[in-house]
């Protein structure tokens, strides 16, 4: 790693003339105050051979769940890292083979529990491809709103906990305050905060209540100011920069080969965003940018996720503008439940209701893999149907699982205290990794 110099200015607004956060130059810049950061020291010769085995987790606040890392240390430098996972394994994929498609949606809430809305949307998209269903325009826009809201929520949790791991407490409170606003919005919409189960195959569990869009507009209007505030505190903060720059570097080629996705991949300079490259939900018609880092370290991952929140706000504003009227659910009694009033008064609707609940919708024989851009990366649902109402195989492609697999490489040669920062930068959710 070459020597990098980062300008540290605590007094600036942190925004350039376009209103974007200013990029900290990562090459040597002679003007201004600058601190020089040496690359992390390698194995010190006098300590060679004095290796120590240290165990972090599975019960440790900085492992973000029940992750266990066994580290071999030389002094304070990590020589080798062996991750252990599986403490939260519940066999979601096995259970899915015994459930109807709409029942599986409840399980998708519980895997990546910071992004339950996004998972609901992803699963419904996969199931709809398997069923051959085209959803309504209103449903598409509502799903985009759901996915982007949960992206912001997930990134806010990541930002807050990452700050705490590194030692900054205040941004955590700011982030969680705004997250609470999103939770209130979601609670108004689907009645739950964490386990949302917001989608159904062919539509949504519920349309938005009246006046809900005003709450969303209020949020998208005021939220950027919180981002600016956090940006002012962190992005050019000397301690923050010192704790994040140059850590856990993945080159673009490595990142692709290790299968990283999401902000982890984009921080390394690879502009792969599922929303842009393999679009779904008409994402190609929204105007948004894909932020890409240059050096692939923890600091770049922070910048990329931070910018992604701004881009999500942009998408939310556009979605709120274009939300069309019309039905949310498709008009097909074989997959969508009839209204309750009809089910209790009309014979035909009652039969449909009974069939959908007791037998469940049946897709034709086939299979589908639909990937979406979750806050963690490429989240895919692979479903195989043999024509019955329950899938033969339901596979979750967990982005944090694949991202976490690279941690032995990323922490090698870094200090023990940096392991915490690198681990936090992956943005892992153990519910998704262990499933």
């Amino acid at each position, binding site marked *: 790693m070459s020597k990098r110099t980062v300008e540290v200015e605590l007094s600036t607004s942190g925004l350039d003339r376009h209103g974007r956060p200013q990029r900290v130059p990562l090459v040597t810049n002679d003007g201004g105050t600058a601190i020089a950061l040496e690359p992390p020291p390698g194995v010190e010769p006098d300590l060679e051979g004095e290796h120590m*085995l240290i165990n972090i987790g599975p019960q440790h606040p900085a492992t973000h769940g029940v992750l266990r890392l066994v580290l071999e240390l030389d002094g304070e430098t990590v020589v080798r890292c062996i991750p252990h996972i599986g403490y939260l394994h519940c066999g979601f994929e096995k259970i899915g083979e015994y459930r109807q498609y709409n029942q599986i949606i409840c399980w998708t809430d519980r895997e990546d529990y910071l992004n339950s809305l996004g998972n609901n949307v992803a699963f419904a998209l996969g199931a709809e491809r398997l069923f051959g269903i085209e959803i309504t325009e209103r449903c598409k826009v509502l799903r985009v709103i759901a996915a982007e809201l949960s992206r912001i929520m997930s990134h806010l949790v990541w930002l807050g906990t990452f700050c705490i791991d590194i030692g900054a407490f205040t941004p955590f409170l700011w982030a969680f305050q705004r997250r609470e606003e999103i939770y209130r919005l979601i609670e108004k919409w689907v009645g739950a905060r964490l386990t949302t189960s917001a989608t159904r195959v062919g539509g949504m569990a519920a349309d938005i209540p009246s006046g809900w869009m005003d709450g969303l507009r209020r949020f998208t209007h005021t939220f950027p100011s919180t981002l600016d505030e956090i940006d002012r505190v962190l992005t050019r903060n000397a301690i923050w920069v010192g704790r994040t720059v140059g850590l856990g570097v993945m080159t673009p080629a490595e990142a692709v080969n290790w299968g990283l996705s999401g902000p982890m991949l984009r921080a390394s300079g690879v502009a792969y965003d599922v929303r842009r490259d393999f679009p779904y939900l008409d994402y190609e018609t929204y105007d948004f940018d894909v932020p890409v880092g240059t050096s692939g370290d923890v600091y770049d991952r922070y910048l990329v996720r931070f910018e992604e929140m701004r881009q999500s706000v942009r998408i939310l504003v556009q979605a709120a503008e274009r939300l069309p009227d019309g039905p949310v659910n498709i008009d097909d009694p074989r997959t969508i439940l009839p209204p309750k009033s009809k089910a209790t008064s009309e014979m035909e609707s009652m039969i449909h209701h009974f069939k959908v609940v007791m037998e469940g919708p049946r897709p034709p024989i086939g299979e589908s893999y639909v990937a979406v851009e979750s806050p963690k990366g490429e989240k895919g649902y692979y479903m195989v149907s043999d024509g019955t109402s329950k899938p033969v195989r339901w596979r979750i492609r967990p982005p944090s699982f694949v991202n976490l697999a690279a941690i032995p490489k990323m922490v090698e040669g870094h200090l023990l205290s940096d392991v915490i920062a690198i681990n936090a930068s992956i943005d892992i959710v153990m519910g998704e990794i262990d499933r």
Partner: protein
Amino acid sequence: MTPFEVVDTGARAAGPPPVTPKNLPHRGGEANPSAKALQEKFAGAVKRVEVIWGETVVYLDPASVKDAIGWLHDDTSQQYDYLSDVTAVEYRDAEAPIEVVWHLRSLPFRRFLRIKTELRKGEPLETDSIYDIYRGADWLERECFDMFGIRFRGHPDLRRILMWESYKEGFPLRKDFPLRGRFSRSEQLRQALAQNPEARYSMEELSIADAFAELPEDMRARLNKGGRTGE
């Protein structure tokens, strides 16, 4: 100070910008051009090509999977540089073979390809590891082994990942594995109590550090034989 670099991926790849697929046919439709290229290059190995819901599936002979995926990865006209997923499918029909599934992406060409190979039951469930081609296959293949018992030849560290290493009930995602597990609660409890709670580290981990020298004699002997703690 330079502004935050924002790269538009639409400018990166050739061809028109991708759009959301709509009204996909159940069977048929346009196949991924890589399937045809594979058929030309590996004529004997490609068993059949299917297009289901717009996704191309190439069924390959188990012996040539690694060569074919390696070619897809390296060839400049294909450039499948990204491994999305490695998994397996077992059908409810007990006669049907187990399928190993690879999901590959070509980021430069924006292509998606599903490679499948069929492993007959009764024969050893083995296929070649693509660890050498994609490092991302490491944990994905371990999970596939853990859940289905499929051995990936050439994987350097093929051991259980989600289940613990001394797990003896078999492979949970196989169809003959009952939903509630093979062992009763009392048997599971008995096995858990029989574990050595002091054995925090696996033998492999102890062997990497100096702790090895401080181990009792019998543990070192077991380690040399390749045994594991806690079993």
